[in-house]
C-alpha cells in the first residue's frame, strides 16, 4: 500500500540547496534518487546566511561530508572565536561575544556571580576565547582540560558563496542529477505538488520536493503558504581583497542607522551592512524582509534555509537555523506519500528553533535606551520568553533555558554581560563565599589566560602553517 519515497527533487541553487543535497546524499541509500534543480540566481541572497558559524558547524560539516581540512582547502574560510560587537546601541557598549565551554563553578556559586556588583572585573577578561580573539591569535583548543585554551570553542568565518561551491564539488562525487533551469510553473493539487515545469518545458516529478529557492520560496508560495514578516531592513554587501592580519572575530559596528559587519576570511574582507529601509541613506542596498513561513512543510514539500525563514544575520542565527533545518529533515525523511507525521513534527520543531534563535537576536536589540531611530525602534520586540530570560538574569543572574535552544547558557550569559545588563540581587551563595578567595582565583585565572594568549600565534600565521601541514600530509581530498 505504501509507496516509498524514491525520488527527491531539491529546487534551488544556493547554499541551502547544496547543503541539503550534501546532507541527503550522505544519509540516504543509493536507491533514492536525488536531483538538484539548480535555479539560476537563487544564491543572490546567500550573503544573508551571514559570514559566521557557531561551534556546532564543525560536526555538522563533517557529517555532511565536508571535513575541516577540506573546508580550508576548498575555501578561504578562517577560524572564529566569536563576534566583536562595537558601539552597540551606544558609543560605549562593546564586547566580544565569544564561544566558550561551560564556565567553572565553585562552592555552588555559578561563575557569572563573581562579577555581580563589581566594576573592576569584566566577564570577558576571564574568557580565553575573547582574549585570544582580541589579540588576533588562534590555535585549536586542545583536549587536555587543565590548559586554559581547552575551554575555548570556535566556529568559522566564511563566504557563503564559497561554501556553496565547495559543497557542490563535494557532492558531485556522488550520484546526483543536476539540472539548471528556471521554474516556469509549480503544479499543485490538494495533496501538494505534482510537478514542476521548467523553462525548457520539462515536467519534473518527485515524491518529495525540497524548497531551497531562497526568500521567494517558489514552491511553498505555490502552495499558498503565507510568510509572516517580522521587520524590513535594507542590506548591502561587498568583498574586497585584504592583507593579514585577519582577526579571528567578526566585527559588528553599531550606528544609529543600523550596523556594519566586517569578516576577514583569508585574503578577503566581506563587509555587510544593514540599515532601516530609507533608501536615500543606503542607496546600494536592497530591501529584505525578516520573518518566517507560517509552515515550512506542507504536503509533499518541505523548505530549508531562506525558503523557510530569513533571520537577521546579526548573530550566527542564520547558519544555526539552516543547520537545524537540514538536521530536522534528515531525521524525518518520509517513508511514504503520507507525510502528515513528518510535516507536523518538522513544523513543530521549526517553529521552536526559529523562535529560540530569534530570541537571541531580539535580546541583542533589547536596549531600554536604544537610539531613537527607525532602525533601533523597529528592532525592539519582547515576548514572554525574552522577558523571562532578561528579567531572571537581572533579578538574580538565573539562566532561563528552553528545550533544544541553539544558543547555549554561556552564549546568553556573555550576551547579557556584554549588553551591560546588571544582576540586581547578588546570588545567595556568592554572598557567603570568601571574597578574597574569589579574588585570588580570578587573578590566577586572568594571569593564566594572559600567558596562554601570549604564546598563541597570530591567526593568519597559524592558518598558513596549518594549511602547509595539511598539504604536506595530503590531508583532505587530493
Amino acid at each position, binding site marked *: 500500500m*505504501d509507496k516509498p*519515497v524514491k525520488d527527491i527533487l531539491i529546487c534551488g541553487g544556493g547554499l541551502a540547496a547544496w547543503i541539503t543535497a550534501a546532507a541527503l546524499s550522505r*544519509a*540516504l*541509500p543509493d*536507491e*533514492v534518487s536525488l536531483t538538484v534543480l539548480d535555479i539560476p540566481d537563487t544564491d543572490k541572497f546567500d550573503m544573508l546566511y551571514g559570514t559566521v558559524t557557531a561551534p556546532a558547524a564543525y560536526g555538522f560539516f563533517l*557529517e555532511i561530508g565536508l571535513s575541516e581540512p577540506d573546508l580550508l582547502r576548498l575555501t578561504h574560510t578562517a577560524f572564529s572565536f566569536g563576534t566583536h560587537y562595537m558601539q552597540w546601541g551606544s558609543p560605549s557598549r562593546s564586547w566580544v561575544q565569544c564561544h566558550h565551554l561551560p564556565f567553572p563553578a565553585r562552592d*555552588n556559586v555559578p561563575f557569572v556571580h563573581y562579577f555581580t556588583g563589581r566594576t573592576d572585573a569584566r566577564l570577558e577578561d576571564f574568557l580565553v576565547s575573547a582574549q585570544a580573539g582580541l589579540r588576533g591569535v588562534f590555535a585549536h583548543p586542545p583536549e587536555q582540560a587543565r590548559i586554559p585554551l581547552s575551554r575555548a570553542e570556535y566556529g568559522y568565518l566564511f563566504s557563503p558563496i564559497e561554501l556553496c561551491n565547495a559543497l557542490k564539488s563535494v557532492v558531485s562525487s556522488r550520484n546526483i542529477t543536476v539540472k539548471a533551469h528556471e521554474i516556469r510553473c509549480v503544479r499543485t493539487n490538494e495533496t501538494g505538488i505534482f510537478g514542476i515545469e521548467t523553462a525548457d518545458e520539462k515536467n519534473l516529478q518527485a515524491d518529495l520536493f525540497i524548497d531551497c529557492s531562497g526568500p521567494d520560496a517558489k514552491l511553498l508560495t505555490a502552495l499558498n503558504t503565507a510568510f509572516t514578516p517580522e521587520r524590513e531592513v535594507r542590506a548591502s554587501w561587498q568583498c574586497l581583497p585584504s592583507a593579514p592580519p585577519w582577526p579571528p572575530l567578526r566585527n559588528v559596528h553599531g550606528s544609529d542607522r543600523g550596523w556594519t559587519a566586517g569578516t576577514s576570511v583569508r585574503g578577503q574582507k566581506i563587509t555587510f551592512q544593514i540599515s532601516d529601509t530609507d533608501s536615500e541613506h543606503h542607496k546600494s542596498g536592497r530591501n529584505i524582509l525578516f520573518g518566517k513561513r507560517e509552515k515550512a512543510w506542507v504536503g509533499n514539500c518541505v523548505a530549508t534555509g531562506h525558503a523557510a525563514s530569513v533571520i537577521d544575520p546579526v548573530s550566527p542565527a542564520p547558519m544555526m537555523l539552516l543547520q537545524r533545518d537540514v538536521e530536522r529533515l*534528515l*531525521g*524525518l*525523511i518520509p*517513508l*511514504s506519500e503520507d507525510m502528515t*507525521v*513528518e510535516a*507536523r*513534527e518538522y513544523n*513543530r*520543531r521549526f517553529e521552536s528553533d526559529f523562535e529560540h534563535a530569534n530570541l537571541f537576536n531580539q535580546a541583542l536589540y533589547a536596549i531600554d535606551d536604544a537610539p531613537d531611530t527607525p532602525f533601533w525602534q523597529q528592532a525592539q520586540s519582547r515576548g514572554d520568553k525574552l522577558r*523571562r530570560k532578561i*528579567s*531572571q538574569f537581572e*533579578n*538574580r543572574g*538565573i539562566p*532561563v*533555558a*528552553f*528545550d*533544544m535552544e541553539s544558543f547555549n547558557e554561556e552564549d546568553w550569559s556573555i550576551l547579557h554581560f556584554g549588553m551591560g545588563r546588571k544582576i540586581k*540581587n*547578588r*546570588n*545567595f*551563595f556568592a*554572598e*557567603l563565599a570568601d571574597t578574597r578567595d574569589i579574588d585570588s582565583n580570578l587573578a590566577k585565572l586572568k594571569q593564566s589566560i594572559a600567558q596562554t594568549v601570549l604564546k598563541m600565534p597570530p591567526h593568519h600565521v597559524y592558518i598558513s602553517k596549518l594549511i602547509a601541514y595539511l598539504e604536506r600530509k595530503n590531508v583532505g581530498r587530493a
Partner: protein
Amino acid sequence: MGIQHICILGGGTAGWMTAAALSHKLQKSGISIGLVESEQIGTVGVGEATLPHIRYFNRALGINEAEFMKATNATFKLGIEFCDWGRVGDSYIHPFGDFGKPVRNIEFYHYWNRLRLSGHDVGLDEYSYAVMAAEHGKFHLPDSDTKKIESTFSYAYQFDSSLYADFLRAFAEHRGVKRTEGRVIEVQQDNATGHITRLKLDSGEYIAGDLFIDCSGFRGLLIEQKLSAGYEDWSEWLPCNRAIAVPCEASGKPLPYTRATARKVGWQWRIPLQHRTGNGYVYCSEFVSDDVARETLLGSLEGNILAEPNRLYFKTGRRKKFWDKNVVAVGLSAGFLEPLESTSIHLIQEGITALVELFPNGHANDLDMEEYNLRMELQFERVRDFLLLHYVATQRDDSDMWRYFRNMSLPDSLRSKIEAWLSRGLVPAYERGVFLPPSWIAVFTGQNLLPRGYDPRANLLSRSRISDMAHILRRTVRETISRAPDHSDFIRSYGAAIPELVSGSP
C-alpha cells in the same frame, strides 16, 4: 535583611529531604532551620521506589552509599517490570538504561525496527544491559569506561522511606536543624502582606519563620488550607484516586527492580527491600470498592503481612502555585502523580534543587516565585503525559476502567508523540523533563505499540551487517551479564547489607 529563619512543616520524606539539603547548603549562612512534625498525624509511610537522580541528591550531601543503604534496608533498582499492561500475560522492564548504542549517529532501535519488520523476532530488551541484568537478578555499579556495555545503564534504590527520613533527620539535626514535635493548630498571617508569620502548636508554642516550606503532605496545610493556592485536577486523565499499601515477608532473594502489575481496575506494586517486600494497590474508587481492592491486594501477596494495610486517598494533579507568598510547597502538598514510575521523590528533589538555585538573598520577590512555578509546572506536566502513556498504549479492554482509557481524548502533545512513534519509530525528545526517549521506547515496545516504519538512514547498512551487529551486541550483553555478580551478593560485598541479608535468612 532577608531570610533569617526557615520553618519546614512536616517530617515525611519531603520534609527531611528538604531539611537535609538546606542545612547542608546553608551551613555557613547563619540562617536557622526548624522542622515541625507530629507523630500523632504521622506520615504517608509509602514511597519506597526511586529514580536514579536520587543518587546525585545523596552524593551532593556527601552521603556514603553503602552506609545509607544499610540504614534504609535498601536494594538496588535497575528499572520497573510492568506486567499485564499491554495485554494480560505480557511483561517488560522499563530499564534505567539504553537499548544498544547508536551506530553512525543513528539510534540502535531504528536498526532493530528494520530487522523486526523483516522478520527478526528478538525483543529490543535483549539488547539492553539493564533489562538483562535485572532479569537475571544481577547487579554491579556501572563501568566508568563508556565504551563498555557495562556502562550503558544507571540505577536507583528501593528503600524503607521512614528509615530514609530517619537517616536524613540524623544528618539534618547534626547540621543544626531544630526539630519540634507537635501538631499545628493555627497558622498566623501578616495582615498586610498575607505572608505566614508563625505556626501555633497544640502545646501552645509558636514557631516563627520568614520562609515556610510546606511539607505537610496531601493536606497542604499552608499552601492550600491557608493560602488557597488552588489545585489543577488531572483526574480526568489519571482517575486512580485510592491506594492500599501493606508490607509482607519477602520470599527469595531481593530483586533489583520494582514490579507494577496492571489489574482490571488500577495496578499493584511490589518493591523488594532487603528485609521485606512493599506492596500496594492503586485503584479508582469509581470502578471498584475498597473491600474488593483490599482482597485483591491481600490475595496476591508472596508472604505473610507485616503490618495492618494502610489506606490512602488522593487526587491526581498539581498545585496551581507551588510557591506563593512566603510558602513553598514540596512533596505531596505540591501535587500528586500516581507512583507508577516512582516519580514523587524525584519531584521533591526537583523542587529542592529549584529552591536552592533560586534561593533569595534578601527577600523573595515575584520573579523568584514565577520562575519556580514555571519550572515545576513543566516537570509535573511531563511526568503526567508519560504516566498516561502506560494506560493508553494498551490492547486491554477487559473492564470499565480500561474502556474508559480507550475512549479518552488525549492531550495533543501525547497523541502526536504516539503517532510519530507508530508511523516511523520517532520519539520527539525534550531536554527538560525526566523521561528521555529510551523510557518512551521501553513502554511503547513493551506494550506492543510497534512502529510500521523506521528511519530510512538505517538502510545505509546492509541487513546482514545489521543482523551481525545485533547478534554481537546481544551476545556481549549475555556474556557480560553471566559474569556479573548476583544482586544480593553485590549488596553484601559492597558493605550495604543488613544483618538479615548477611545471614541469608530472607
